């Protein structure tokens, strides 16, 4: 349904039905998705400008438009990207889209098992862990419950990175949300297979432990390095908080 919000047609009737129910409860849902995707685009652009040429995109989704390799390779054609998703359909679709692009790889793994991701032969073949890279966990963490220890997952990933690497995070947050809206949105998600774990700004900031947050820190995604001042208006309507951290050293 994320793809549906973005205006794509890579979706099924059930997704569309859920998406429409969600829009009824939270009218700005499509805007959320679009704002998040735009944040992803600006973040990748920032990273390529900062010299990053390797990307590990975990929870990459169904590639619609504006995929990480498209953005990165447009500016730096030698950029390499590994896409990771648990959803077999997303993985199969990514494979199809990426066939012939030998600077990308797709694997089916679970963010909650970072060791498996890090040890995966395709990951090892595509990415050089002695060099800086960017790990993207964008619009995924809210699918990971506290029981699955997201902080530990991120720590494991961090431990594998070379100094100068980056972490990009975004996830749904209820900072400043009104109670009725929150309840209604959660209700909709509960009816789907993917319950939503919204988190506060402080929690999200905590996930950057060990990284130095780049300006402007953890903010509503439209506020993260906006292209125009207007585009950052009413930013909390985007529901997603996001940020980028750099591993010092």
């Amino acid at each position, binding site marked *: 349904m994320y793809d549906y919000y973005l205006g794509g047609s890579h979706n099924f009737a059930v997704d569309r039905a859920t998406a429409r129910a969600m829009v009824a409860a939270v009218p700005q849902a499509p805007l959320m998705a679009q704002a998040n995707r*735009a944040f992803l685009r600006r973040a990748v652009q920032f990273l390529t400008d900062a010299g990053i040429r390797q990307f590990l995109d975990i929870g990459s989704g169904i590639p619609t438009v*504006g995929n990480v390799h498209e953005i990165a390779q447009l500016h730096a054609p030698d950029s390499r990207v590994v896409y990771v998703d648990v959803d077999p359909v997303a993985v199969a679709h990514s494979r199809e889209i990426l066939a012939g692009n030998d600077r990308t790889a797709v694997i089916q793994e679970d963010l909650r098992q970072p060791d498996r991701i890090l040890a995966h032969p395709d990951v090892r073949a595509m990415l050089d862990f002695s060099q800086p890279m960017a790990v993207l966990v964008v619009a995924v963490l809210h699918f990971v419950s506290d029981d699955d220890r997201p902080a530990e997952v991120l720590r494991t990933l961090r431990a594998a990175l070379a100094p100068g690497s980056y972490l990009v995070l975004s996830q749904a947050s209820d900072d400043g949300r009104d109670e009725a809206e929150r309840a209604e949105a959660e209700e909709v998600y509960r009816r789907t297979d993917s319950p939503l774990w919204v988190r506060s700004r402080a929690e999200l900031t905590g996930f950057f432990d060990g990284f130095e947050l780049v300006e402007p820190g953890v903010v509503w995604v439209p506020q993260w390095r906006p292209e125009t001042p207007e585009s950052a208006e009413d930013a909390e309507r985007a529901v997603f908080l996001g940020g980028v951290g750099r591993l010092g050293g």
Partner: protein
Amino acid sequence: MGEPPDGQPCAGVFARAWAKAVAGTSYLPMTHAQLELLLQRLTDLLAEALRAEPLDLRVGHKVADELVAAHIVSAEALGRTVEVIQLRLVRDLDLVSDDIEDRMARLLGAVATGYARALRDRTLDEQESIRRAAMTARVEAEQALRASEARFRHQANHDPLTDLPNRTLFAERLAAAVDGSAGSGRRVGLCFLDLDRFKRVNDSFGHQIGDRALVAAAQRLRRAVEPHLVARLGGDAFVVLVERSTGTGDVVAVAEAALAALSEPVVVDGHDVTVTASVGIVERRVAGTSPDDLMRAAGSTLHWAKSAGGAGWALYDAERDGREQARQELSAAIPAGLERGEFFLDYQPLTSLHDGSLLGVEALVRWRHPRLGVLRPDKFIGLAEETGLIVQLGGWVLAEACREAVGWTSTSGQPPYVSVNLAVRQVRRPGLVQEVRSLLRRTGLPPNRLQLEITESTMMTTSEEPVRALRALADLGIRIAIDDFGTGYSNLAYLRDLPVTELKVAGEFVRGLRTPEALADERILASLVSLAHALDLTVTAEGVETGGQAERLRAIGCDAGQGWHFGRPASPDHILARIR
């Protein structure tokens, strides 16, 4: 979209308005500046078309295509595009002509048509691609499931250590091979193989190396007996199924191939591990046999190969198996026979060679088997000794002998003593002295009327216990005899330290006395007797069959005789008749 050209890109007022109108209608994979630039280019195309003669409607299609290609893909985007062009394009770009309304309407129509067509195509493409992905994912999931099912089936049917088929799979294949629907002439064979003393490999090299040697042995076996099925039954036991055998030779060949394959040492971790194996071979017609029969027969045959020293094969022998099975059944029936009172005692006279008087009798156990009739001890004592039932049986004999003997009274002097055989296991049992003592107390039999016969081998032990027990019994006044003397080590020296009162010389020596030429035997016997007397022991000769033998024995100085010449084993009544 593309990159901004060098120099300040600048979108006109119309393009900026257009960009504002479509922003947010769907996700746009570009910056706002890039969007304005794109729309500026499309604005230029539209303006040019409106000015040109004739009006080229394909420009409308092209503009629409580009919008959709840039992912400006929503109904709202189209609506707003039509609206903003209609409202502002002519005005903002100052496009004045007589037929501008007419041209505008046709161009907008072309944009809308082109847009609807492009969006439909894009939608269909995306739907198709996501469906294909879903299909691929499902196929992959099914393949993974099938693979895991296959793995699961394999695991259920194979031994995890060696990856050989396991007992379950073997049982299935054997059952199928013996299936009744098989042709009547079909034959089948089994090689039941067990590594000899494999525990020693584990003990000396450790289990890890033991396991690896086992894996190596399994691999060799598999290769050696191909294409026959070889399964690991557990531990170090394997079995080879030879289907459609044409005769014993086929299966023997398989067994020999297996043994040959195992004869080379296995090198594990730098250790030379040598294993040998024993194989039990069964080969027979399928008709009339069953998997259980075959397995049982193969198991017995393996046992024969093992007891023949290992490192070889043995072939099933129905007659031998029948005998062993009968023995087995007999031995299993002993406890019930005891309970039902099927055992009874006969007694054989032990007669004085000096005056012909009856000194004692030896109790001999018989079994009145309900099916086999009266059995003599050689038919079942050996079995009872193997299984340990001898303790129970021997205990009964001892008690019964004492019970009967106490009733024998003699008109002339001392009534005969009763002599009872004690098996090794009985002597080694801790409670023996206590048992005999309470038995004597219970029956009232005077200790000097009881003689216990033990074999030489009973005493050939390093352990002190049996000697101490015998001494305690002798101290009670019980007579202790060494039975079958001369058949074992016949070590007279050790007799000196034992509380023995009598030697019973084995019948072999006596038989020699039949012929006058057998001087050697007679001399051996004579020196034995004089040695025994020197040690203060009496000597009874067993197996005395003739008067001549009795005469010689008396001449040698032998004290007593036992054998047909003096009387066969008989019921207690006969004995009673003799003492009256």
